[in-house]
């Protein structure tokens, strides 16, 4: 089953203004369910913009983007959010953890708008933190845990609502070799559970890992190569 379909996709920032930038042009890509895809490319090649479109953050300027069977270009912001909420889990380069909240509260944030009562969301969040080995940090302020633990908190938050698609933007950029390998091993586990995973990375360690099914290389907003 095809999870993501992109056809003649273009994204232009600040269209019609002096600072107009064509971030993506003529992107054609299909991603199967349970596939792990690595987007490679130098900085400014359009990887993050492509990831944002696949993550229903904003619609493309033109072309077709179909994620989880829904065409994004026709969805207003409200429905993009609803679609993203149920389907996608994000892992960010800077982790994007809310430092003023505790580790547990950070993981519970996506569940709040899904209408989970306090006890149920705490139970669910603690279970995922336990799986990632950071449950002992649950009541710590997020600003007081280490980088490796913070990333596991970010992964826990991305997985807590059991999304079908995981999007990770430069997930190993701030991790050492050992932690990067540990992260990729965990992605392997998720793949075995049937998740579709899209990673962007400069890191050869990511592209070479056994969990990755396909590598797509980008430059200047275009796909220049794709290999399995």
């Amino acid at each position: 089953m095809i999870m993501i379909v992109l056809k003649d996709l273009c994204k232009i920032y600040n269209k019609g203004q002096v600072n107009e930038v064509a971030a993506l042009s003529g992107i054609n890509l299909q991603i199967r369910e349970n596939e792990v895809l690595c987007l490679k490319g130098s900085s400014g090649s359009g990887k993050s913009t492509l990831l944002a479109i696949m993550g229903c953050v904003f619609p493309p300027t033109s072309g077709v983007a179909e994620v989880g069977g829904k065409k994004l270009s026709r969805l207003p912001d409200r429905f993009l959010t609803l679609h993203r909420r149920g389907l996608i889990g994000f892992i960010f380069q800077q982790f994007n953890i809310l430092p003023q909240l505790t580790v547990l509260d950070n993981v519970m944030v996506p569940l709040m708008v899904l209408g989970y009562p306090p006890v149920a969301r705490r139970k669910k969040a603690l279970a995922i933190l336990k799986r990632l080995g950071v449950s002992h940090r649950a009541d710590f302020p997020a600003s007081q845990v280490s980088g490796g633990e913070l990333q596991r908190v970010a992964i826990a938050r991305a997985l807590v609502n059991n999304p079908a698609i995981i999007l990770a933007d430069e997930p190993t950029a701030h991790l050492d070799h050992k932690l990067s390998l540990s992260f990729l091993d965990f992605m392997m586990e998720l793949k075995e559970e049937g998740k579709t995973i899209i990673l962007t990375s400069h890191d050869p360690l990511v592209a070479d890992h056994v969990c990755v099914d396909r590598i797509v290389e980008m430059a200047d907003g275009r796909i220049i190569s794709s290999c399995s």
Partner: protein
Amino acid sequence: MSLGFQKQLNILDYGLASLWRRKTKNICVIIVFSLVIFLLSSFQFLTGALTSVAEKTLRFAPEITVQRMVAGRQEQIPLAYVAKLQNIFGIRGVEPRIWGYHFSTVTGANITVLGLTSFDKRLEKSLLVGRLPRFGQAGEVVLGQGVVRDLNLQNRRKFALFRPDLSQKTFTVVAEFKPESELLTADIMLMSMADGRDFFNMSSDFATDLVVQVANPAEIENIARKIGQILADTRVVTRPQIQKTYSLVFGWRSGFGSVCLLTSLAAFIILAWDKASGMTPEEKREIGILKLLGWQTSDVLAVRFYEGFAVSVLALVLGCTLGYVHIAFFEGVLFRPLMFGWSVLTPNLQLSPEIHLTDVLLVTCFSVLPYLVATVIPAWRAASVPPDSAMR
């Protein structure tokens, strides 16, 4: 429990936790906001309390007062005018009255001297501590609290004042007006008509004005019109007109003060708006992250709404409570100069504020609503943009 309701509870939970995390800043906002609301509500409650005191006291004001006017100024009215009015149907009685001012050179205060030919017995029960003067006993008077203070009588019951010809007239205090009526009675010295005439050295054929009692209060305006037609050189003042005048005086003073206070409230709201629109990068980032994690623009707005609502309602309750305490226990000390400062003998009355729903609604409309708008609209602007900035 429905999913939507639970979601709102969760958002409320997040909003209150968010307030608590920034407690120092929010406590400061609540203190300043409460202070502004306290000033505004004090004014409202004070106006209400004063109007209420005036209404209660003016119940004993004459239904119709007839004053003679010469060249646009009030002159003494001949007692012969009494007979001209007695034939008007609906008039229960007409009494001449002495009404004048005695200037105290010691304190620089004006004492209002009121001489009557009869006293309303109800006065004794509701407005006086003591008894009414007896007509056979010369020099018996009832004093307002301001006069008692001004003359520094303390426990003395006898005192003397100078007549216009500098001879002395001795008075005996038989009663004092109750403190709660001080707003209107502070400067009054009530005596018999004969004593009033004697004190002012007035001719026995004249009075200051005539007091008319009517049989049916609904006919006051009609009878006043008839009096005006019969006595063309007089000004006829009715009790509703006096009540309206007091109401306007307090309304004008309150309005003036409210405008000043609303300016400070507006300044606070502008400050809140400025603070909220100049959201810190951390706050914008938080909104971006929440949106990336599936929170809708409306969810982010709900957080800001609950935060703003909690702050403003707490400030409203605190401010109004302080306002009530200020009026009930501190006699509106901050606003006395503005609201009471109309006589040299400043009243010193005990006010009991009356809380009217309209007053509370008015204060709410001028505090809670603008604060909510000032905090929610900037958040709406920040939350309406795509959250991709949080991805970088």
